[in-house]
């Protein structure tokens, strides 16, 4: 019924290590939610039943950065929070990816004030941006698909994986 029915009687599969590792990684992303504002409400909706991000393999939401490989920055980041965010990002083991969700995390949004970071990508790497204020859960799901594309294009012999 599934993959095994295509493999013939002996159950062999010909692939590359790169492809099989990426296939596993991109379909079992463990997100670390970093929700600081209304985007986090939409993120929670995405995780829960109606939108159900677990359909795409990313339902194991980890509240410890040491167990996560996808950081979802959703909400305003102020200057007092930025060192915390950087610390959490650096505590995540490689390989790791980052979604910047919503206008505030991506560019500061409407909050052009002295306390607000005008985009977290100034100070840490970001792979996928989600527009919206706040983005709907469908947008975050689409960002997950984009991250899956990014993960699928990784090479396991690149420096990103510590090899």
């Amino acid at each position: 019924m599934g993959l095994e029915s295509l493999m013939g009687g002996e159950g062999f599969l010909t692939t590359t290590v790169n492809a099989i590792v990426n296939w596993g990684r991109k379909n079992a992303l463990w997100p670390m939610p970093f929700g600081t504002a209304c985007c986090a409400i939409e993120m929670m909706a995405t995780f829960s039943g109606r939108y159900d991000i677990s359909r795409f393999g990313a339902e194991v939401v980890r509240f410890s950065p040491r167990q996560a490989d996808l950081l979802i920055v959703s909400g305003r980041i102020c200057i007092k929070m930025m060192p915390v965010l950087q610390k959490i990002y650096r505590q995540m083991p490689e390989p790791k990816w980052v979604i910047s969700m919503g206008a505030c995390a991506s560019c500061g949004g409407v909050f052009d004030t002295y306390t607000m970071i005008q985009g977290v990508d100034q100070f840490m790497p970001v792979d996928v941006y989600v527009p919206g204020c706040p983005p709907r859960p469908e947008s975050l799901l689409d960002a997950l698909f984009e991250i899956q594309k990014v993960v699928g294009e990784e090479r396991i012999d690149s420096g990103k994986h510590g090899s």
Partner: protein
Amino acid sequence: MSEQYPAHAALPPSLQDLILDTTEHRGQTQLSCKAPNHRSLLENFRHEQGYDFLVDVTAIDYLGKDTLERFEVVYVLRRLGARRDQFRLHVWLGESDPTLSSVVDLWNSARWGERETHDMFGIVFEGNPDLRRLLMPEDFPAFPLLKDYPLTGRGERRQFPRVVPRGDQMVEEEPTDYPTSIGRGMHTPEYIEEVERDSKPRK
């Protein structure tokens, strides 16, 4: 008008002379005085008149306005029980020496209000035992509610090290366009060593 307000009327004449002005607007009374005189007035309100609750301490910056002094420090006083009422004492404070004596010994709740007022306006409350930053980072270099502080700041929001991937590690780069960094308390050498050890893949 001024004699009608009970807190003013109950003051002894020597202290009444310290009150510069009394205004009433929509049932809210406001007394004002000059800077060093607030202490004896507040002591009287606390001990003689039973104002047992300091609601808030805050300040107003009148930069560019034609006022007596640049700052007004506002004490909101309330007393509970049978004689319950509330009024504000506004204290004029000059910008050359924005220093006031603390009233922490009269009301413990002044700790928070004075600390926030110091954080936002840079007004120093002498005698407050814990005048650290409250809302802003500990090493923030400015007082953001001053009227001459720009809304978007003076570049503080860009003064962070950048975490960038280099090889199999994440390293921190100092910003080149801004010389100093805030929030550095978290980026001690011990911390950097710790996260570099932790973020390396396990072999």
